[in-house]
């Protein structure tokens, strides 16, 4: 437990010492969301309908953007080796890194999402559910993403390859996440969507780190 906490604190501290990375990911999210109205036209009704999907796809892509660095720095400077040689299982360290990744990538996205939702003229209820769904869904993105980042660690063209592997696996999160907001906008209850989203996140965070650890050991050989 202490080892887990230590990895989380360490990764957060590292992320905060170079805040430019976090900020540029967030701005990427803002820019993607702002491009859609330019592409499809300013009709408010259409934009309101597109908003859940657009914002969720934006959150997905922004998460993707920060994934390649999840292990790359530690791999390059040898820290990953030391993590693999720690008496604690490597999966535990990966779990810590996944949690930290969510804290510096998923959480800020969830905070930012309602502001962008306002631009798309979403109702208050829909804004709340949007924030909540991104909050509940992004842990799954971090977890599954860790597997992809582990598999592509140290490969040429790793970033593109990573999106190729991970994006298809993100589809359920996208469907339930955007579906929850859609449901509220359509006057339905979003509970089922949110419950499924939570299930995906719990599964993703509980199992993915151990699989990612397997992939990392391969990369270290």
């Amino acid at each position, binding site marked *: 437990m202490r080892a887990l906490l230590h990895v989380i604190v360490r990764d957060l501290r590292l992320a905060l010492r170079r805040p430019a990375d976090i900020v540029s990911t967030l701005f990427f999210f803002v820019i993607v969301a702002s491009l859609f109205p330019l592409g499809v036209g300013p009709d408010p009704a259409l934009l309101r309908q597109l908003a859940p999907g657009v914002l969720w796809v934006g959150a997905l892509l922004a998460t993707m953007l920060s994934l390649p660095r999840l292990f790359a720095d530690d791999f390059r400077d040898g820290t990953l080796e030391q993590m693999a040689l720690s008496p604690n299982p490597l999966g535990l360290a990966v779990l810590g890194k996944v949690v930290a990744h969510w804290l510096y990538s998923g959480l800020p996205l969830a905070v930012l999402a309602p502001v962008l939702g306002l631009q798309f003229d979403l109702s208050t209820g829909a804004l709340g559910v949007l924030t909540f769904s991104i909050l509940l869904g992004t842990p799954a993105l971090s977890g599954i993403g860790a597997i992809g980042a582990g598999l*592509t660690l140290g490969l040429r063209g790793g970033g593109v390859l990573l999106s190729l592997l991970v994006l298809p696996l993100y589809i359920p999160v996208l469907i339930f996440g955007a*579906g929850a907001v859609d449901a509220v906008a359509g006057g339905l209850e979003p509970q089922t969507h949110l419950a499924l989203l939570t299930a995906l996140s719990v599964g993703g965070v509980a199992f993915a780190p151990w699989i990612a650890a397997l992939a990392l050991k391969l990369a270290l050989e």
Partner: protein
Amino acid sequence: MNWFKYSAPAAFYPLAGRLIPWFWRLAFVFAAAGLYIGLVAAPVDFQQGEAYRIIFIHVGAAWMSMFIYLVMAFWGGMGLAFNTRLSGMMAQALAPTGTMFAFLSLWTGAFWGKPMWGTWWLWSDARLMSSLILLFLYIGFLALTHAIDDKRRADRAGAILLLVGVVNIPVIYFSVQWWNTLHQGASVSVKGSSMAVIMLWGMLLVALAMWMYTIAVALTRARIIILEREWRADWVQTLSNPESAGGTAGN
């Protein structure tokens, strides 16, 4: 019979060589019978006309694309669990054929959709979406294993990806189904309740032919992969140059 004996490439190579012609023959027999039923014997559908006959290929291709992924995942799991070299080679050998069938099922699906639905592509069809995602998974596997130079790492990373994919396929399928019912009523269904028995036979025979073809092609490809990876081994040197058997070749 000791199956593990054949998990060694040196034992597998000649066995596969003997089996391949038989699988080709079976493939041709089944294909001829299946296509005869599908294209000649089966009656014209009074609603769909002649165009429906494409499903004899389409259904088989769709089944194959799913089966092959499962088989690859099985080999991947074996490779991770027992550390056998052959498992990774089999997964590699099956991947291009699986990709081809996934693409074929999409392509024939579009050809079938045009006369039936009046459009090449229908986003609201859950099966079409699932096939598309399966194709993405295949392409991801191929891209990953080809990006890794070290064969051992490529095999094992591919196996991990396959297992992750297999666990995810039901979740993805369920979510797409869910999304589908949310955005539209029931999708267009191919299978009427009154599908003629003869049509079922046609589909089954074509699917069997595809199986035999897949096995033949995968075994051939596996033999090539074995030669590529193990060309330094004594037994491979013996194959290509019987006179110097076991001599200095291995060093």
